[in-house]
């Protein structure tokens, strides 16, 4: 075994991080030799649908693997059939109405578990059938990995990871997970997996461009939600005032992001399944380059400190793959 490791040290290991979006496929390649990065490459391919990788992608991945035998392909799982449960026990799944037999779970630190539906895992395996796949990483795992690098904060901290087409939210009280959700914001339908969104989905009429008036209307709704959750009564008015002065310009996806963020927060506050309290700090790992307005809006809405760190999702994905191969 020692010999194998010694030989492996001298081999070039190639990590390929793949992120499949609805109409594009992002591939980042990193070659590592003796702990040093010797080559990095990033490519984007257009694809027709999430159900099938284009021939170009398959050819590219096959070529990469032909060049280097030690190639690990990691996929960032961004389909909505996944989530996180604040316990590792099977009974917790029942409590959250998740059919344990239909998901694959991974217990993290014996504190909480992340899961993905068998259908989504099958989907990933199917679209990578021709090229092979080594890792499927949950965005929760990535967020947790990022979170662990932070210094600990007291109170309830909301961590959010934003990617091109999804947001991942985890709320922690110190090391205890209180709540977590993953939302695909590419399409409105994806919201269906959160079971309390009816009133929001009703309003997806136009997303092309929302002017201030529209946004005011929107923030009214959000403010209403917040009021429902018994946030201080003045939130609504302050939100309205701020919105008026800030002149928010939010487009389709950005708007959806805000909406889903609010909806998630509301679920966290309202749903009895979660032990909830007010969030005191928000940390956003920004993988997309968030609209500054969103950040400002969130700050104003939540009345808490919001910290943003820009990250590269592909790099984080590769970092997870490196951890996994080196830990194994």
């Amino acid at each position, binding site marked *: 075994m020692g010999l194998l490791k010694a030989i492996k040290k001298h*081999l070039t290991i190639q990590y390929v991080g793949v992120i499949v979006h609805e109409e594009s496929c992002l591939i980042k390649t990193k070659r590592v030799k003796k702990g040093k990065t010797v080559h990095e490459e990033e490519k984007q391919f257009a694809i027709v649908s999430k159900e099938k990788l284009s021939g170009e992608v398959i050819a590219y991945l096959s070529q990469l693997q032909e060049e280097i*035998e030690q190639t690990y392909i990691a996929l960032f799982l961004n389909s909505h059939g996944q989530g996180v449960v604040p316990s590792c026990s099977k009974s917790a799944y029942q409590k959250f109405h998740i059919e344990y037999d239909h998901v694959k779970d991974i217990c993290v630190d014996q504190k909480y578990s992340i899961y*993905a539906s068998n259908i989504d*895992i099958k989907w990933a395996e199917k679209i990578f059938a021709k090229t092979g796949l080594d*890792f*499927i990483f949950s965005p929760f*795992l990535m967020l947790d990995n990022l979170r662990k690098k932070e210094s600990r904060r007291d109170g309830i901290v909301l961590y959010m990871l934003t990617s091109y087409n999804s947001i991942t939210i985890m709320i922690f009280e110190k090391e205890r997970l209180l709540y977590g959700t993953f939302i695909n914001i590419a399409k409105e339908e994806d919201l269906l997996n959160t079971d309390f969104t009816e009133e929001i989905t009703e309003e997806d009429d136009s997303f092309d461009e929302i002017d201030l008036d529209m946004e005011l209307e929107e923030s009214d709704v959000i403010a209403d939600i917040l009021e429902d959750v018994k946030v201080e009564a003045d939130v609504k008015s302050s939100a309205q005032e701020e919105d008026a002065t800030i002149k928010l310009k939010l487009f389709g996806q950005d708007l959806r992001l805000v909406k889903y963020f609010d909806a998630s927060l509301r679920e966290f506050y309202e749903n009895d399944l979660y032990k909830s309290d007010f969030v005191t700090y928000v940390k956003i790992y920004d993988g997309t380059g968030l609209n500054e307005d969103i950040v400002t809006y969130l700050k104003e809405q939540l009345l808490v400190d919001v910290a943003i760190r820009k990250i590269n999702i592909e790099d984080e994905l590769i970092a997870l793959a490196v951890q996994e191969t080196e830990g194994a």
Partner: protein
Amino acid sequence: MRSRSFIQPRKKRLLDRMSSLWLGFIVLVAVGLIVFGILIHYKSSFYIKMLDNLHRQNSSEMKKVKHLQKEVTLMRMQGQLAQEVTKANEVLKESIQNMFDLIPDQITLTKVVMEKKSLYLKGYTDSKNSYTLLLEPPLKSIFTQTKVKFSKDTKGRTVFESYSTIADQVSLEDINESR
């Protein structure tokens, strides 16, 4: 560490297909060579042992041969010796025969001492004359010197004692006498 991925990574080969083929081939050849080498080693050590044995056998055989050669020379010598002895015996026999042929009927021998270069005879004779006539001439012809002494025994018969020698014996005696 438990895997944090939803699927297990594929097993990776340490080398690509071509390299592993090559490596396999090289290993195969190496193993073949080693086996061949071992075979040759055993075979050669076997031959070396055999050669050793043969050397040992050879030296012992050589010793035997030398021994036999010695024996042969010894036997040859013995054979020569035997031949010489028989020849000498034959010569002796002939000379005895000759000597007895010399003795006439009138003379009876009682004692004969035959040596290489001398002859001593003692016996009876009818008379001195018969000795001097019949025996002395042949003796004188053979020997260079002949001495004779006559006497009478108790029964009145004439007894003679003759002593004949060949030349150098005589000269030696002469020398003794002259002293």
